[in-house]
């Protein structure tokens, strides 16, 4: 195999109002990932091709794209997997496209922010009292959810995100759970209000693809289902013991 064809979805708003596929032939190399092929195009064939990338090692989460209709990090997806080609490359599904393979992340980042993914404490300990210590078991509670790199692949795998653009989405819930399960955090009450709302966890119908495509094994689908159980328990508590709820 000497070369492989990449069919790249291009969107050039100043030239055409609709995206179109453009074919590029790149030399095949066994050690190349999709991102290497795109970089080859950018350097040697067509400098106008636009896409995001940074770390090249599956950590920064910027090179997510649809490859043959599946959301992947292009820096850890080998060309070889898709031989003999052609390989279809498109921007992440359901997001607004700015140019070629670059999507608008504003909406996603807004949703993540709504989930308040940071430590919320009722009382700040004075510095003299020392650190907030945690046992390895307490760390294990939330560690899996802390592995999220905000790559947005789970949003592109979720048809609910496409059907209901207001749905808060998999990563935001997983990140909320990362702090809800943290022994140092007191913010679950604040997060519950947002995530148990109309566009929160109950929009999820458990397609389960978010967890399948996650490059960091965060399991956002699991995070959402666990949240639903919490939600049901909270609701019953508010019915049985109304004086204790609404913290």
């Amino acid at each position: 195999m000497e070369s492989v064809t990449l069919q790249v979805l291009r969107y050039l708003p100043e030239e055409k109002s609709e995206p179109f596929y453009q074919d590029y032939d790149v030399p095949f190399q066994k050690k190349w990932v999709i991102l290497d092929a795109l970089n080859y195009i950018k350097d040697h064939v067509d400098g106008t091709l636009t896409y995001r990338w940074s770390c090249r090692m599956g950590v920064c989460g910027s090179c997510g794209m649809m490859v043959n209709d599946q959301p992947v990090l292009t820096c850890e997806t080998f060309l070889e997997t898709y031989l003999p080609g052609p390989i279809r490359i498109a921007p992440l599904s359901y997001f607004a496209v700015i140019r070629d393979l670059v999507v608008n992340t504003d909406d996603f980042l807004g949703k993540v922010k709504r989930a308040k993914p940071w430590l919320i404490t009722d009382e700040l300990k004075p510095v003299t009292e020392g650190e907030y210590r945690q046992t390895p078991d307490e760390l294990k509670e939330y560690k899996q959810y802390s592995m999220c790199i905000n790559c947005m692949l789970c949003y592109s795998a979720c048809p609910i995100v496409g059907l209901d653009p207001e749905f808060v989405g998999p990563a935001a819930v997983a990140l909320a759970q990362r702090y809800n399960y943290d022994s140092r955090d007191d913010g679950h009450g604040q997060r519950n209000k947002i995530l148990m709302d109309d566009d929160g966890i109950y929009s999820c119908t458990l397609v389960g693809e978010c967890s399948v495509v996650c490059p960091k094994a965060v399991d956002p689908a699991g995070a959402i289902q666990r949240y639903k159980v919490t939600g049901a328990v909270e609701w019953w508590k508010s019915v049985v013991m109304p004086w204790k709820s609404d913290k």
Partner: protein
Amino acid sequence: MDSRESTTSRTDDAGVEIPYQRFRPKRYQPRMSIFWWIHKKVYLRFIIRELTSVFVAIYAVILIVKLNALLRGPESWEVMTAALATPFSIVLHVIILLFVVYHSITWFLLAPTATVVRLGRKRIPDSAIIAVNFLMWLVLSVAVGWIILAV
């Protein structure tokens, strides 16, 4: 955002202001086809799971109607049982049974996703949760079957 846009706009030769938007053209918002679930096997399986759950709902309604007939007395119960003995009803119940079994299996297989159970410091493995669920299903089915056959 507005302030940024106004500071970066400029004027052309005639002194007319060119808004910044000209250099930040329209974004493309893809639309979802109503047949989005046809192209991928996992989505197709998901839609089948969603649509066939209608049969589970139908059975719930039948059960409510049955209870209602029971409350109304022997005459309406007779009418109800006669209606349930028709070939249409039997075929419908066979279909419902198949889908209820299918949904029970998928439900129990998904159970560990939502349940995290700990025994001391160790987390109970997913397979054990699934096994316990299936075992309970079997025990309860046998118990219910025994009650019905004993009466």
